[in-house]
């Protein structure tokens, strides 16, 4: 089980590094961004406006937020796995059968 977890973590880190290397999560030059935002008659049709964080503060913030999201997900998954084990054990012991269920809810 632990080996599986380690493999999953390595795969996740590899995916993250791939995404970081291939992403466009770079700060656009504010001056260029401003110029691009003004529609121009002479602009080439194939020019595209890239999307992403505006400055280093936002970039750092968004990466921290993503890290926090994944940490929360892993913690929640850990607790959910414990709950699954518990509910499966209760189900196998017949805890959810009608009679016992009623007693539980009344309590």
């Amino acid at each position, binding site marked *: 089980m632990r080996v599986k977890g380690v493999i999953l973590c390595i795969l996740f880190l590899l995916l993250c590094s791939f995404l970081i290397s291939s992403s466009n*999560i770079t700060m656009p030059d504010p001056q260029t*961004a401003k110029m691009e935002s003004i529609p121009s008659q002479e602009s080439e*049709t*194939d020019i595209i406006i890239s999307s*992403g964080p505006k400055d280093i503060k936002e970039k750092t913030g*968004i990466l921290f937020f993503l890290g926090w*999201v*994944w940490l929360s997900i892993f913690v929640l998954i850990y607790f959910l796995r414990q709950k699954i084990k518990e509910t499966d054990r209760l189900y196998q012991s017949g805890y959810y059968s009608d009679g016992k269920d009623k007693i539980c809810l009344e309590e």
Partner: protein
Amino acid sequence: MKKPYEWFEERFGITAIMSFLTNKTIPQHKHTVWYYTGSAILLFFVIQMITGFMLIFYYKPTLELANASVLRIMNDVPLGWVIRSVHSWSASFMIALVIIHLMSIWILKSYTRPRELTWMSGVFLLFVSLFFGFTGYLLPWDDLSLSATKVGTDIPRSIPIIGKWATIFLRGGEDVTGDTLTRFFGFHVCILPVFAFLLLAFHVYLIQKHGISEPLKQENQKTKLKGLPFWPNFIFRESIIWLFLIGVLLTIAIFLPPHLGHQADLMAPAPEGIKPEWYFLFLFQLLKIFPAKILFFTGDTLAVFFIMGLAALFFFLPLIDNKPLEQKGKAVTVSAYVFLLFVAIMTVWSLL
């Protein structure tokens, strides 16, 4: 703590609902994994709704302001680019899951009597999802979206008699204009959501009425499989998948946000390399490979008829494959794999 519970219990009957959910069981077998795709679709639908509500506060569906308002969402609205990216990626995730869900049902033949209408409502939901994607693609109003919409709305024109009318209906006129944008916006945020909700309610009702399908072997032998309570055992398992999918969606949305092209010019020629969204690529390639004329028909007309034929076969599958369970062969399963292979080849071909 007891008082609030009693207040809610008196009004909503929570005990009865929980008892119903606990008594509802999900069959456990080697194909159970496919059951999770249904709820994952619902998750992405909800994400789309929430992010759509956020985007609608800033988006302006007019010829002059559509592109600029999307640019404003990306540059000026706090984390607007993330919301737009999540909205766009969750659409792709949802359509991918709808396709996976339907293909699993096709391969496992879970559409057999009495679940024909469950399948048909599911296929309708796929069509609605695709139309959501098609209408949403135009809303940024950039060069690429305008050209792709011109090509897409021109396809029905090849259908005899009603074709021209269908194109005019979609465009709100002879050409793609500001009226098309308003019309597509109306479809995207009002008409399609209503359709989707009604179909979803009907689909869920049918699943509830007929129960979740079991593998054909078990249904044939009338043997009862071991079940897992929907609440809490199954929901906890589903929650793990939901959490993981939310993480993946957010990661991809942050690292690969969609770009925006410059404001569309109605007079400008179509840019090179027009490509629709990935889920339309196989249709796009299919239209390209048909010759200009075959006998008395134009290639476009035949291609459209071919696509409509495929869609009809897909929709009426339960009525075509309606043999009793014990007489079912492998032909339908093989046809599902052939269809998947065909779609994959066409998609890769269009990208080359």
